[in-house]
Structure formats: C-alpha cells, structure tokens
C-alpha cells in the first residue's frame, strides 16, 4: 500500500499568508528536514500538519487520500520543542500519556497500553529511567521521553519541532543517530524542523527550505547548496566534502560572512 505523505499547494497564515502554496512529499522510512530562518513558518507548518491550525487552502494527503482530521492524533506522533514541566510525572507515566489517542474518553490505560509504553521505552533506550521523575533527568533524556511518548501512539508520521535545539553536542549526535535508526526500523514518515543545515545533511533524505513567500523542496544534497543557503539565510557558506566512517561521501557546512538579502 502506498503510504506517501504529501502536502499539496497548502496555504496558511495568521492574517497575512506565511505558508505560500507549499508542496512536498515524504515516503515511509524517509526523513524530511524543514529548514528556514526564524519566522519563515516552520512551527506553523507543524501545527497545520498536526491539525492545531486548519489550512486556508490545499491540504495534507496520505496514500493519495485527504488526511483525516478526526483521527489525526492516532496517525501523528508529535515531539514538542521543549516541555515545560508543571507536575513531575515519572518517565513511565509520561510515555503512557502517548497512548491517550487510543484510549476511550472515560477509560484508564489498560495492561496492553502499559506493555506498548514499556516496549517503546526499551526501543528508545530509556527503560532504566522508567521510575525516575521527569524533573530529575537531563535535557537529552527528556527529549527521548518525548520521542517515546510520540511513538507510543504507534503513529505513521513522526513530527519533531527542533528536537535537538536545547541539547549539548553529544546529545544532539545521539538524538540524530537514534532518529535515523527509528525511522529505518519502523518505516515511518519523519518530518523534523531544524536550524542546522549540518543536521539535515547528516540524517535527512529530503529537505524543505522555507523562505518569505517561497520555498524549495527536493533531495537534501540538491537543496543544501551554497547558493540556496545564501539565498534563504543570507549567509555565505562553504561546503566541505569528506568521507564518513562507512566511506560515504558527505558535506559539512561552514558559515562565513553575512550577506544582505
């Protein structure tokens, strides 16, 4: 069955249009990186896909069919940028909350919900934290908890809003590697906002570059080029080629001086 996720000619804006006829498509097992300057509409795009905002025109499709808004939370796992903690739930409680879309309004989580939550914690590698309070764990661990929570609803699409932005260098690398593994193993569609072209180059298959009233979409290597980065961010960059451990050809982005846009 074709489970390609597509957004076609989608528009949205608060008053004025921020997202201007945006189109892209992601296959299961692929990661789409969404890059763009502050205010270019990355988070807005997430909220539209997630059903928090309604598209002004156009829309999202899965397998050629219009994305079902009613069941949206069962199909999308959402990882927020960072979580403000009012009550220090334990890690296992927090992951179990991911089962909410699958649980009847007046019911409590069942044994099988608990089992799925436990399995997800294991998959993400946080089983040892299960009984810890979310206020006692590190920022990197918290991000893993939020990813486990998103995966607990067994979604087809994983949406992440700058998941690595508050993490240190090691945790960023850990998170990116984990995401690539998860997507390869689960064959889900993954859409990730990021501020780092390097991260897009490292793990994403496709990239959507958002700018004011324009966007480009395509294979990551074809999108992240000197010209495009200059055009969309106003930064002169150098792309340095190198070979990674597996002998694959990669690029690293080095930012140089600013240019006027």
């Amino acid at each position, binding site marked *: 069955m074709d489970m390609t996720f597509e957004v076609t000619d989608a528009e949205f804006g608060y008053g004025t249009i921020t997202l201007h006829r945006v189109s892209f498509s992601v296959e299961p097992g692929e990661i789409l990186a969404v890059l763009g300057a502050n205010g270019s509409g990355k988070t807005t795009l997430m909220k539209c896909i997630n059903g928090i905002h309604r598209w002004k025109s156009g829309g999202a499709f899965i397998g050629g069919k219009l994305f079902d808004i009613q069941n949206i939370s069962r199909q*999308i796992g959402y990882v927020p940028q960072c979580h403000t903690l009012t009550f*220090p739930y334990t890690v296992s409680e927090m992951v179990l909350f991911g089962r909410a879309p699958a649980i009847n309004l007046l019911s409590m989580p069942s044994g099988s919900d608990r089992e799925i939550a436990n399995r997800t914690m294991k998959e993400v590698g946080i089983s040892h934290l299960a009984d810890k309070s979310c206020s006692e764990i590190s920022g990197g661990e918290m991000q893993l908890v939020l990813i486990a929570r998103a995966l607990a609803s067994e979604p087809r699409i994983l949406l992440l809003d700058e998941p690595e932005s508050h993490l240190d260098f090691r945790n960023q690398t850990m998170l990116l590697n984990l995401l690539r593994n998860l997507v390869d193993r689960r064959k889900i569609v993954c859409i990730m906002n990021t501020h780092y072209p390097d991260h897009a180059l490292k793990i994403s298959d496709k990239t959507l570059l958002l700018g004011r009233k324009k966007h480009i979409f395509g294979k990551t290597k074809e999108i992240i080029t000197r010209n495009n980065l200059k055009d969309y961010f106003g930064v002169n960059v150098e792309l340095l080629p190198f070979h990674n451990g597996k002998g694959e050809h990669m690029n690293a982005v080095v930012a140089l001086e600013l240019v006027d846009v």
Partner: protein
Amino acid sequence: MEQNTRSLQKKIILLCFLPVIVFFLSLFLGRYPISPVDVGHVLLSPFFYPDMQGYELQKSVIVGIRMPRVLLAMLVGAGLAISGAACQGIFKNPLVSPDLLGVSAGAGFGAVLGILLVGNGPLVTMSALFFGIISVVIVFAISRINNTTPILSLVLAGIIVSSIFAALIALVKYVADPYDKLPTIVYWLMGSFAKASYDDLMLVIIPISAGMIILLFLRWRINILSLGDDEASSLGEKPERMRWLIVISVTVIAASAVTVAGIIGWVGLVIPHICRMIMGVDHKLLLPATILIGASFLAAIDIIARTATPAEIPIGILTAIIGAPFFALLLNRMKRGWI
C-alpha cells in the same frame, strides 16, 4: 515499575481506613461523652438488639446530631479536596484552588443576601447555589476571547468576579442589623457544620457526588490537560471542551459546599499537595487519594472545632490556622519540584 505500582496500591488501601477511623472517633468524641462501647451498641442495635432500651439519649446524640454532621463534613472535605486537585491539574498551576473561579465568593454572597432578606431556611440555600452558578457564568462570559478561553483570561476573570462579590458581601454586612443579622452573617462566613442536619446532607449529597464521579471518570485525562493545550491536542484531546466539563463539575461541588458549610478555605489547596507527597503526581491515583484524605481531614478538624473550647470554633478559622502553617512546613521539608 511493577514494584512501584504495587506499593502505591498498598498505600491507597491503607488510606481507605483513614476516613473509617475518623468517622468512629467523631461519633464518640464531643461535649457529651459517649464511650466507644456505647457507640458500638447504638450503631449495631438495629441489627442485633432491635428492642434495646435505655440508650435513648446516646442514640439521639449519635444518630441525630453527630452522624449527619460528620457525614456532611466528610462529603464537603472530599468534594473541596478533589476539586482543588482537578483545578490545579487543568490550570497547570499547583497554587490554584476551587475558590479561584469566583464560586465561593458568589455562593457566599448569595447566602448572606438570603440571610439578610429572609433569615434562614431553604431560600438561603437556593440563593447561595444560584449565585455560585451565576458567578461562573459571568467568569465564562468575560473570559471568552475570539471564541476561545485561554487559561490566563479565565484566571483573571475569576479574580475580577471574586472581588466584586467580596465587595457585595461587605455591602450586605454594612447594611445588616448589627444585633440580629450581622452576627449570623459573620459566623456563617467563617464556615461551620454546627447546624448540620440530614436535610443539608440530602440537599448536597447528589450534586457533590455527581461532580466527584465525573472528576473520577476523567482523572487520567486531567494528566493530559496538565501538559498544556498544544501538547494535549496533539494527543487527541479537545482541551477546551474538557476544561469546561471539569470547571462545571468543580463549580457544582464548590457551590454546594459553600451552601451548607459556609466558606472553608485551604482544604482545596493543602490536601492535594499532601496527597501528591504520598501518591505522586499522576491524577489517576491522586484524585481518589484526595477524596479519602480530604474527608478525613475536614471531619478531624471538625472534631477540634466542637471539642477544643467550650464554645464552637468556626471551622474556616481552624482550616486556615492549621492548614497554612502545615503547608509551609511541608513545602520546607519536601522540595519536590512542583512549586
């Protein structure tokens, strides 16, 4: 994790005994001394000694006076405590209590207005309930912004409505007859179960229980709401609809409680915190715990209210005098990260 769940279940079973113990203590402690053995005799007599003689006085004290009073105190305590926990959850703020939405002030005004105009009786009660609900309707009306109700505007609207009704209460006190009506009003505002009767109990048992049952059904969902609206809706929740359902339940409970017992502060704030320290923050276990501890706490305070001094102490004064320092002590000793 299994270990953890089991120890929590053990705790909640132990907590179930607490209200039972306080209930029996309440029956034999009081101005008129009755031994625990006699309490047992009176309670069991309908089953074992239907033709028992000579315990008429004890029977009337226990069944006629103390029983409705302790039951009412427990119902109100349980209702206020679970409402507080639910409010703190949905408003993502551990310092919130059911008074926040203006219910207490509204119902309080209704009651003092009733006392001023008709003295006492069912009209006072109806007036209290009516104004309690009116206050939340007003809060609802002024907190709507662009067809949505942000938490902050709801809280601000609650503060506005509370202070208006507080001013109106002051006005009623000012015009009330200082020798006849004013003492009644002042005494009533301080909260008391002294006039508790089966009629009061019958009047509020259905609304308070209904509110508590709704909150109990939704208790796991309150967790989801406490994550914030965006996260909640990404988890399939409709935060606003849910919030109103809970606010309505809380209003009914709080207005009913004020109606029969006057204004009793601190229970809705302190008890949820004590319960979090015992049970953790998951509302699934927290809400049942608040019912058990809230009921026991208020009934226990009521024992002090009627036995500590020759004259009754208004219970609202005691909950503040005992509750506030206790709360300060708890905060100091257990810094657990939710303040």
